[in-house]
């Protein structure tokens, strides 16, 4: 059995902001941690029928991955638009993660 | 494994606690977890002396709660694990046994009953019948053996491991302080020598294969969200329990065929009951004796047939009606009067029983 999640992908600053609405519970923890305040509430509803998040509300994303790091539900994946730095974050070894089966 | 601890059959003269330790060794028990309490202690003493020799494990835990839960852990890991306790320790052990009951874990617990309630005495009683059969917040889906001699203590300790792993209900050997501390002749044996095959153990966690890849992970729980979920799990277990009961129940009788007075007793007290019957028979009275060997499941059907033929039933126990309540509930529908000779925490001799029979004109 393999599971895949649909992403809403938004390009913003240095990052591709992949948000998985089926995972996002709208807790807002990521919003608070973004150093450039780019994350804000979106219209789209998430796992619990509450709004999910999206970038574009503040300065451009610097792809620091803090939001990805703190999200308790793994609902964000920040991909660097320059393709670098994949393995520098806590959650390294990317695509393999869910598709390993 | 190292050399077999027991080969063939061997006669010995030892205490019951020693018998249990030897039986567990002979049964291939892998590990004992335990906490000291009288009159169980020497099971641990003997086990620790022999464990290293036969490459078995031992852990003295911080209390009976931990002993029970560590036993659960050993069993989950696929090992023939056991513990032993008594009295207040048995009370605490119920928490883990409730979990074992819910999760169908083949735990084995040897109980050496002592006086109760509370700390009471460290000596002897039959007051842990309710607790061992129905302890915890459940329905008593357990197997409880009540041996009456060292030979049986050996046999049923081995059998406990087999029943536990075969049927997957928590299993108990319900001994008592007298049996623990007394010395009498016993024949210990290698189960194989008697054609007894030990049920294989299989792990419930730590299975081979990468979980999620090569197999599903084992996700074991004892908590449910909805009443209906729990009901389904419970009713499955209950039906299985009821289905295996006829295979599990055991009993012993003597001189029952024409018995007008049927004396019912379990464990060590049944020896006095049997002796009383012998002595009544010698004097021409038609007495018989029935002993449930399994207290859970209870051999009600067999007893019913015998009890229906008798004029009087007499329950003898070193407790205040714990067995009697089982008998009455199990035989509901009969009209044969039941009298109890109930002596909580006291040893019972054949002479007393005979005297009581005459005093109450039960025959």
């Amino acid at each position: 059995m393999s599971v895949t999640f649909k992403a809403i992908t938004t390009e913003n600053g240095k990052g591709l902001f992949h948000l998985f609405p089926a995972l996002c519970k709208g807790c807002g923890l990521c919003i608070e941690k973004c150093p450039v305040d780019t994350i804000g509430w979106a219209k789209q509803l998430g796992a619990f029928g509450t709004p999910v998040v999206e970038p574009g509300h503040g300065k451009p994303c610097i792809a620091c991955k803090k939001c990805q790091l703190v999200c308790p539900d793994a609902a964000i994946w920040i991909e660097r638009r320059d393709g670098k730095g994949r393995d520098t974050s806590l959650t390294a070894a990317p695509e393999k993660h869910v598709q390993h089966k | 494994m190292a050399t077999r601890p027991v080969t063939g059959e061997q006669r010995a003269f030892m205490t019951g606690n020693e018998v249990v330790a030897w039986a567990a060794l002979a049964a291939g028990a892998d590990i004992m977890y335990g906490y000291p309490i009288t009159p169980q202690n020497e099971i641990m003493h003997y086990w620790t002396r022999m464990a290293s020799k036969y490459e078995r494990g031992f852990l003295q835990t911080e209390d009976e709660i931990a002993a029970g839960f560590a036993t659960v852990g050993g069993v989950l890991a696929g090992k023939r694990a056991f513990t032993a306790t008594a009295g207040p320790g048995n009370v605490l052990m119920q928490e883990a046994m409730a979990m074992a009951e819910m999760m169908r874990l083949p735990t084995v617990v040897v109980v050496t009953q002592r006086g109760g309630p509370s700390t009471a005495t460290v000596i002897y009683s039959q007051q842990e019948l309710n607790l061992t059969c129905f302890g915890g917040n459940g329905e008593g889906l357990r197997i409880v053996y009540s041996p009456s001699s060292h030979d049986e203590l050996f046999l049923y300790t081995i059998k406990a491991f087999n029943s536990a792993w075969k049927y997957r209900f928590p299993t108990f050997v319900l001994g008592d302080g007298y049996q623990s501390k007394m010395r009498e002749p016993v024949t210990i044996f290698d189960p194989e020598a008697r054609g007894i095959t030990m049920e294989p153990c299989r792990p419930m966690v730590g299975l081979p294969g990468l979980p999620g890849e090569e197999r599903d992970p084992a996700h074991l729980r004892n908590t449910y969200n909805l009443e209906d979920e729990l009901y389904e799990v419970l009713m499955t277990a209950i039906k299985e329990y009821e289905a295996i009961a006829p295979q599990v129940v055991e009993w012993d009788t003597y001189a029952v065929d024409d018995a007008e007075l049927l004396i019912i007793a379990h464990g060590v007290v049944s020896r006095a009951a049997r002796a009383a019957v012998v002595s009544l028979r010698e004097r021409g009275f038609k007495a018989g004796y029935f002993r449930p060997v399994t207290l859970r499941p209870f051999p009600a059907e067999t007893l019913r047939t015998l009890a229906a033929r008798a004029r009087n039933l007499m329950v003898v126990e070193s407790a205040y009606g714990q067995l009697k309540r089982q008998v009455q509930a199990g035989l509901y529908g009969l009209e044969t009067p039941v009298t109890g000779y109930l002596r909580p925490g006291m040893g019972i001799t054949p002479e007393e029983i005979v005297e009581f029979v005459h005093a109450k004109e039960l025959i």
Partner: protein
Amino acid sequence: MAIAAQPQMPRVWRAETKPHKFCPGCGHGIVLKALGEAIDALDIQERTIFGCDIGCSLLSWDFFNLDTVQTHHGRTTPVLVGIKRARPELVVVSYMGDGGAYAIGAQHLVSSASRNDLVTIIVVNNTVYAMTGGQMAPTTLPGQKTETTPYGRDARLTGRPILGPELVAAIAPPGAYVARGSIANIVQLKNFIQKGLQNQLEGRGIAFIEALSSCPTNWHTNAAATWRFVEKEMTAYFPVGELRTPEEKPSGRFQEVPPYES
């Protein structure tokens, strides 16, 4: 891209059971991310047994692609110690809340610490009994309102927040690993957990990691207040860092005394 973007879950997470059962903003998800990463890094998925307690940790009973057993409130450590003693080749992780660890299960913590049991214990400190609806926990801060301290915890009557790692560090023999991390520093938390697992793999002794965590549901906090509570209020009482490392020379408490011959 060849494959569509997918969530970056630790390999050992079980995607089929996501989204997980924890509330929005619950720190459990973050701690379990750190744990998942540590297990991935050590490549020990095949031999790791995960045990969760009763408390919100029970919601992780199907969280991982790991053989998992959900035990009783406070009893996870004895169950896993039982497993470890029976099968020393397995790696056992005992995961629980502050109530399970420091209140009802404190005797097991004390005993496993003093026995130096080869188990990795992770305690999620959220200052409350979360699963039961927010009563006082041993970790509740002075003045903090909970369902059983409706007017704020009065330290004179109910004591001060318990210091779990300090307790373990005070009694565990040499070889123990003891640390306190926080969801506010996930990389550090992951490193602590990884060291804790390593300690077990090397058979050196117990590993004990407390994680400061969040419970927005029972704190009744929004995201900003949640972070503030973890980073300011909790950290004032619960200093983050390593308290014992296995390399440490035994302190004065544990002089080298030759074993007694009786």
